[in-house]
């Protein structure tokens, strides 16, 4: 199938490129979604995890009051459960054993020490509160520098240092570039640590189904099938005795894309006790102990010519990955992905990237919308602005001049990525036009009526999406996420059921996959039911992450439905007594001239009246297909964001006045959903840029453990984002679809920082760290003033 060919039924009103309302919204709007917290099993106990209150220490003893004996369980009670080991294939990677319950040592505030069970959550909390843990406290490794100090105590006793791994990418001769470059620009940058903050926190329920003799796990997860595989391995039982169900999931963003110790601990104890157990994470646990996001440090040097053309880039990325390596991504994913996409949309031929992943006494770092790319974009885009300023030019121009030209596609980057298609400079130009660069520059030159400083920021990125086998093999993960399946099955009354291995947690996939079926079959979207999230219902699939589900599962649905379409046409032609090549599909019917038969009649024949079928035609209407893209190196979506800010130098407050996104995610299946995904991503990215942070103190205590201290953007903080679309189909994927779920969250930290620094130019002040709080802006202004102020 050629990439851009949107097949036969392109006049279909609900197919690819249309924006029908979402099938799944009715139940959500009616409050009828069903989450783990809505599920109750007779005899179920509620779980509270007794979590470590200290960052680093050995457990000497744990005292359980007499009246609570038998309700508190420790590592020894589920000793059969193997630790979670997420080891990268990278040479020198030091592996962590992440046990479901701490065995002798705790390694972060929130590490699980014991499981307390009771009929209600509050009673289980009482039990946890009554237990007394005696620790031998060890020095907390609360910061990257503390971890890497020569005499630092080791978090994992058998390691040689607190470094998980260091990896390098070296392309071209960086030393030669360093010696000869006319312009050298250095930047040191930091991104704060934060949490994922899905609306629904995590949750797990486990019970034994006696009839099926299987352990059933309900988990708020993005990848139920893969959880089944790893859970079976850790529990030492067959996958045939496990069923993992992800019911409605209230947001994932990557934090539900890990196999977490909570899932293993609950499953293991439910298996041992033969008793249903449920844990519903509360917000405090979520902020403290769910996998964290970001916390990057960057040291970047650009070598450029006098016009700001970047000749070479030297980058050191250091990530605080916390106490354990998360499964399956490994601790090194964040730094590795950042260093691996650092040159972004720019044609920078010479590159040296060093990625260091550091172990500390903090909650483990996991994937979060954008993963390392938000950091890479933040780094390179801040650097581009600095290069432009140092050669005395407008960053808008320098940015566009450094970009990969459309005629260079497909383009192999210095980080060994193969960019498949697109026109990056045009995207940046459209963004610049939409935000109105000239008008903003004019406004900046005028006296501000209220004393606030106006700033313009831009940032571009290219984003590998829907990458398959080749990319995941290259990353050396325990699992290779190469494909997606779809089982398409008609019912005898003419409805279509799609069983898919992805998981829909807000992306609208119950609608967009139906649109793909509609494209192939001309069936109304309302007649398509998408089933997902249950390892016993759907064919084995990898789940929803890495901006892959539309491309991967969409491809599979297309392949399955295309085969069904052929069969329907054959049966329909037979029923109409027409030649096969003179019938066509439209409006849920097979047409021959003015005559037609409904799918329902075709389905009746296929399932209930095989005597009506053409000779040699097998009964039933069901196809199972598996899809992987033509090339598994990824379909690259890209975008340029721009925003205008007003910074109040008296209070440090930043207001976003305008925000424009021009993006290209290839062929859009549902432009309405695409736009909403972009805006949602921007909202989250603004959280990274301006609000969200979990600092740790010198004792390794997290300082933002409730929404009193942890701030997320709300409706009044998110501007009206203007979204412009470009559509360059990927040559590698069915319909030319590229992934786009994460992209919106990639650029905001970069674009806001560039805008704030543009605003602060008259004061010669520069911020270098997210979130860009009022305090950090005022500190930057004070630091500039201490050095004599504007120059």
């Amino acid at each position: 199938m050629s990439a851009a060919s949107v097949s036969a039924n392109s006049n279909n009103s609900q197919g690819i490129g249309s924006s029908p309302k979402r099938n799944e919204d009715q139940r959500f709007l009616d409050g009828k979604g069903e989450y783990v917290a809505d599920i109750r099993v007779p005899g179920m106990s509620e779980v509270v995890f007794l979590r470590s209150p200290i960052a680093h220490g050995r457990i000497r003893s744990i005292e359980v009051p007499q009246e609570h004996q038998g309700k508190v369980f420790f590592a020894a009670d589920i000793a059969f459960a193997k630790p979670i080991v997420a080891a990268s294939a990278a040479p020198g990677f030091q592996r962590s054993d992440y046990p479901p319950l701490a065995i002798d040592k705790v390694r972060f505030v929130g590490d699980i020490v014991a499981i307390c069970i009771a009929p209600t959550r509050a009673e289980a909390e009482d039990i946890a509160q009554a237990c007394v843990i005696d620790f031998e406290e060890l020095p907390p490794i609360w910061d990257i520098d503390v971890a890497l100090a020569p005499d630092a105590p080791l978090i994992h006793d058998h390691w040689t240092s607190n470094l998980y791994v260091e990896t390098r990418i070296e392309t071209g001769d960086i030393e030669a570039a360093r010696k000869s470059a006319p312009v050298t620009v250095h930047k040191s940058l930091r991104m704060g640590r934060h949490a994922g903050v899905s609306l629904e926190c995590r949750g797990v329920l486990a019970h034994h189904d006696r009839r099926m003799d299987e352990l059933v796990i309900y988990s708020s997860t993005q990848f139920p099938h893969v959880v089944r595989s790893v859970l079976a391995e850790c529990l030492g039982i067959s996958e045939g005795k496990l069923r993992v169900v992800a019911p409605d999931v209230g947001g994932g963003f990557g934090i539900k894309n890990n196999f977490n110790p909570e899932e293993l601990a609950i499953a293991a104890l439910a298996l041992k006790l033969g008793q249903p157990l449920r844990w519903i994470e509360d917000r405090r646990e979520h902020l403290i102990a769910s996998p964290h996001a970001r916390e990057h440090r960057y040291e970047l040097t650009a070598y450029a010519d006098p016009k700001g053309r970047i000749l070479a880039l030297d980058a050191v990325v250091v990530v605080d990955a916390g106490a354990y390596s998360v499964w399956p991504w490994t601790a090194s994913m964040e730094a590795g992905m950042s260093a691996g996409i650092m040159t972004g949309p720019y044609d920078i031929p010479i590159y040296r990237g060093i990625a260091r992943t550091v172990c500390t006494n903090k909650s483990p770092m996991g994937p979060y919308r954008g993963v390392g790319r938000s950091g890479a974009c933040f780094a390179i885009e801040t650097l581009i602005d600095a290069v432009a300023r140092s050669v005395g030019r407008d960053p808008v121009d320098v940015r566009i001049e450094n970009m990969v030209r459309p005629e260079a596609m497909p383009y192999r980057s210095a980080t060994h990525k193969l960019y498949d298609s697109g026109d990056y400079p045009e995207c940046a130009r459209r963004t610049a036009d939409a935000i109105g660069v000239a008008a903003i520059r004019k406004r900046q030159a005028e006296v501000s009526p209220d004393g606030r400083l106006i700033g313009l920021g831009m940032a571009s990125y290219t984003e590998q999406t829907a990458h398959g086998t080749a990319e995941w093999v290259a990353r050396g993960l325990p699992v290779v996420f190469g494909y997606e399946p779809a089982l398409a099955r008609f019912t005898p009354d003419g409805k279509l059921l799609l069983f898919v291995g992805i998981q829909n947690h807000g992306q609208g996939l119950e609608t967009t996959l139906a649109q793909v079926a509609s494209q192939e079959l001309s069936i109304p979207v309302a007649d398509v039911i998408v089933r997902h999230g249950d390892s016993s219902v759907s064919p084995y699939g990898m789940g929803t992450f890495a901006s892959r589900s539309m491309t991967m599962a969409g491809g599979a649905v297309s392949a399955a439905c295309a085969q069904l379409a052929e069969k329907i046409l054959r049966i329909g032609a037979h029923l109409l007594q027409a030649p096969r090549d003179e019938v066509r599909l439209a409006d849920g019917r097979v047409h021959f001239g003015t005559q037609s038969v409904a799918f329902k009649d075709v389905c009746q024949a296929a399932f209930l009246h095989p005597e009506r079928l053409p000779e040699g035609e097998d009964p039933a209407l069901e196809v199972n297909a598996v899809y992987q893209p033509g090339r598994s190196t990824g379909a690259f979506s890209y975008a340029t964001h721009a925003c205008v800010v007003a910074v109040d130098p008296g209070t440090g407050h930043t207001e976003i006045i305008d925000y424009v996104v021009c993006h290209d995610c290839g062929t859009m299946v549902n432009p309405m959903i695409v736009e909403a995904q972009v805006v949602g991503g921007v909202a989250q990215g603004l959280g990274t840029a301006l609000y969200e942070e979990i600092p740790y103190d010198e004792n390794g205590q997290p300082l933002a453990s409730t929404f009193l201290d942890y701030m997320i953007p709300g409706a009044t903080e998110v501007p009206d984002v203007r979204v412009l679309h470009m559509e360059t189909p990927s040559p590698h994927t069915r319909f030319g679809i590229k992934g786009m779920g994460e992209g919106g969250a990639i650029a905001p930290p970069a674009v806001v920082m560039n805008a704030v620094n543009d605003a602060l130019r008259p004061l010669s002040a520069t911020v270098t760290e997210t979130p860009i709080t009022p305090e950090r802006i005022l500190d930057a202004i004070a630091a500039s003033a201490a050095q004599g102020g504007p120059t």
Partner: protein
Amino acid sequence: MKPAPFSYHRATSVEDAVAALTQGGGMARILAGGQSLVPMLNLRLAPLDTVVDIGRVESLKQAQEDAASVRYGSLITHAAFEDKRVPDGSNGLMSFVGGQIAYRAVRNRGTIGGAIALADPAADWLTTLVALEAKLVVAGPGNRRTVAAADFVVGSYLTDLAENEMIEAIVVPRRAPTERWGHYKVARKTGEYAESMAIALIDKARGTARVVVGATDGAPLVLDRAGRAFLDGQRDAALHAVIRDELMASGRQFSAARLTMHTTVAMRGLKDAAAK
């Protein structure tokens, strides 16, 4: 995140509530609007074993006025001020401030007495009542006493309430009709606690100026010198310098960033009042 066991007492009168507090021996707390206490209970951060719910004590929801002042029962909600359902002697400042607190859902339940009793330094009422020179009526076992709002707050979350006392009412003296108020508040986002806030009261006819800065990691700061400097005609950079110096001399350890923020906010509060 569910509360530890506690016993619950529904008070029938102020006297009954005070008796319950006395009986609680330091481990009893008043539940007013519950907008801070209930989350703290759920987080197990409030050490107590008895909750004394005053929600049914009708007398605490009443407001009375006379020629000199308005007396507000401590259970009057922020929303009641916002909606002007209670008498006003502040030239509309209290109604305005009521509408500035958190979100409407919080304002529907949160009470003026509860906010003052908690004494979060960033609470809007704290700064406002100090600015308005309000007095608090405190009920204890067998007695009532009156304390100035400025003396009531001792520090962050610290007040001069004894274990067996509660705030019964807030008495706000009527401000001169010629007085104008100014307000400026910095919050990182809508509905958040203030990073800094200021209230300024200027009466050009009577020659008075009062400016109070709140959210200062302690009791609100009354900037007397700044008020006098304003009356002396100082403006802009000169006034800015006076405010900054006075904040630095306050004994609070402000970072450079905080000092800038509070100075800006005080300036803008004065400017807002002066422009009206």
